[in-house]
């Protein structure tokens, strides 16, 4: 009898608990299916004394099975206007990445292992901006059920598979209802808390959930960056040809 009660209790617990990997998969699924996207973004850099500096960026993305293709065009500040980066992500090898410098008319291939480097001088790194596919991480155990500012969430730990990642682990909060990412804590190579990202202003466009705002706070230098999607069009009808190297010079 005692054994039956214990077994029943374990069964009930497992019905409500969720595997960390499963949470990550579900969180990925709700943002998948955008096919291609064109977004106008605004990035505000805030230094330790509160001074602000704004950058504008157009990002075009093509969803792919073996990695996304992204072309980013800098619209401001004026001295870098027209500078573009093209990234072809690969799951099995280093990404292909090119930089176009309009003043020199030069397309330059660049090393893509710089995962932890700062993106545009912001608190976002290249790996924060890139595709967050759940397969890029390893997970263990069950997700904890926690409350985050009144939102019921799954809290789980993921570890980047990429040896060039700037992080040893990330703790993520995903809301239980819609499986939307709410918060990530990033731990550096010394295993110390480096940054926290807060995700908000989620909206559902044509059945796909998109984030509208990310606030990234660096706890080690007291700087922060706010990334806002001013316009976001998905299923934009972009084709592979629009992510060819030739597009950089156009």
């Amino acid at each position, binding site marked *: 009898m005692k054994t039956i009660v214990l077994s029943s209790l374990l069964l009930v617990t497992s019905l409500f608990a969720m595997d960390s990997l499963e949470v990550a998969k579900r969180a990925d699924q709700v943002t998948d299916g955008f096919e291609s996207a064109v977004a106008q973004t605004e990035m505000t850099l805030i230094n330790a004394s509160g001074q602000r500096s704004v950058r504008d960026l157009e990002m075009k993305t093509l969803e792919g099975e073996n990695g996304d293709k992204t072309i980013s065009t800098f619209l401001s500040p004026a001295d870098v206007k027209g500078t573009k980066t093209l990234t072809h992500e690969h799951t099995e090898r280093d990404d292909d990445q090119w930089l176009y410098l309009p003043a020199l*008319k030069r397309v330059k291939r660049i090393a893509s292992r710089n995962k*932890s*480097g700062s993106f545009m001088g912001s608190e976002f790194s290249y790996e924060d901006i890139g595709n967050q596919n759940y397969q890029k991480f390893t997970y263990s155990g069950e997700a904890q059920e926690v409350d985050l500012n009144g939102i019921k969430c799954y809290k789980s730990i993921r570890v980047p598979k990429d040896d060039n990642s700037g992080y040893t682990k990330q703790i993520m909060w995903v809301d239980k209802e819609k499986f939307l990412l709410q918060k990530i804590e990033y731990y550096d190579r010394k295993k110390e808390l480096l940054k926290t990202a807060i995700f908000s202003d989620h909206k559902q466009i044509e059945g796909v959930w998109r984030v509208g705002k990310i606030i990234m706070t660096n706890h080690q230098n007291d700087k922060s960056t706010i990334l806002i999607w001013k316009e976001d069009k998905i299923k934009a009808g972009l084709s592979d040809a629009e992510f*060819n190297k030739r597009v950089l010079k156009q």
Partner: protein
Amino acid sequence: MKKHIIISTLLSSIIVTNGFALDYKGNFGIEASYLNHDEENKRDKEGALRLEFELQQKLPKGKAVINLKKVYDLRDEERRYFDFSDFYYKHNFENSDLLIGRNTRFWGAMEFYNHTDVFNTKDWLDNPFDYDSKIGANNVAYTHYFDNSELSIIAKVRESRQEVQDSKSVNNFYPPNYDDDLETQEGRDRPTVYLKYTASAEEMQLDYSLIYQDGYDEQRYLAPVGTKLKQHAYLVNKIMGYATLVQGETIYKTELAYTKSDDDLVSDYAQASVGLEHTLYGIWDKRDLGLLLEYYKYKASEDEGDRSSQNLFNDDIALGFRLSMNDSASSELLGGIAIDRDTKEQMISIEYNTRLLDKYKLELSYQHLEPKEDSSFQKMDRAMVEVGYYF
């Protein structure tokens, strides 16, 4: 006057086009230099105002681009000029495009100097040590695009004259009887044709280009015509190639060129350069440090005497660094030294640039030139400040 009327007409015709995005950008700046040298009758201070303005009109099947550079030197009247580095229309077809007009192009892989960047004539009215400062070239270009490659055929017409700064400028290396009228082997309108193939490898991070050229060489020689000394443009057949390969955090580069001369006074010659750039990411907080090592070789099939010595990168090693601060001002510190292995001629360059208040850019630079004994260049130190307003 005629030039101004053409510009105004074209500008207004672009501006009145309705319904398609008209985009512009540019900068207005001031540059001031202090020069330390031993030459008599040469200035030791220079200053100029600069304007660069780009206007781009997107059209249903293409785009029109105008890029104007205007320099007004405060002391040198020869250096009060403007040039359209771009003035073209590009029509897009499904898998190809056709460009008609005037433009600049960049061909090459190296950082210090590019043997294969031969399409445009260098602008010596601007800083002659800035190899990226070029005169726009008139051309018609057709490019066909494949999945991972492209093939271009380009016909360049009207060879550009190379004007120089006045005789009191240390950037004028020529004798006083230099005349910028260009002598050519078969007339200035004889086209120079380029066939260029560019591709990216599928399974490795490799980009490469192959170019065949028939027409006037980018290099020229000086020879007397009456009492004047003039540049002579000669015909060549040239085969060139350049490639970039990324492996991990290192970029390997090479440029190769072989030139067969059609002029009795110029022998055939070959050029080669190899180099690498290795980047250390995230050092000193989040700064990136790029380290550069490049080697250049120039070899003529016959002894060219003085002409060979005019070639700046004939047996040179270049070492350099690029420190990106990754701050909100996109600050960068660049430094390099190029040494001729044979003559020990040296050029040292240090440059710092940063953004101020989002709209302004400050650039500080220092150059030191240590020429060999019989060089037409003189020993010189130059410190320069440039401030630009960007819009």
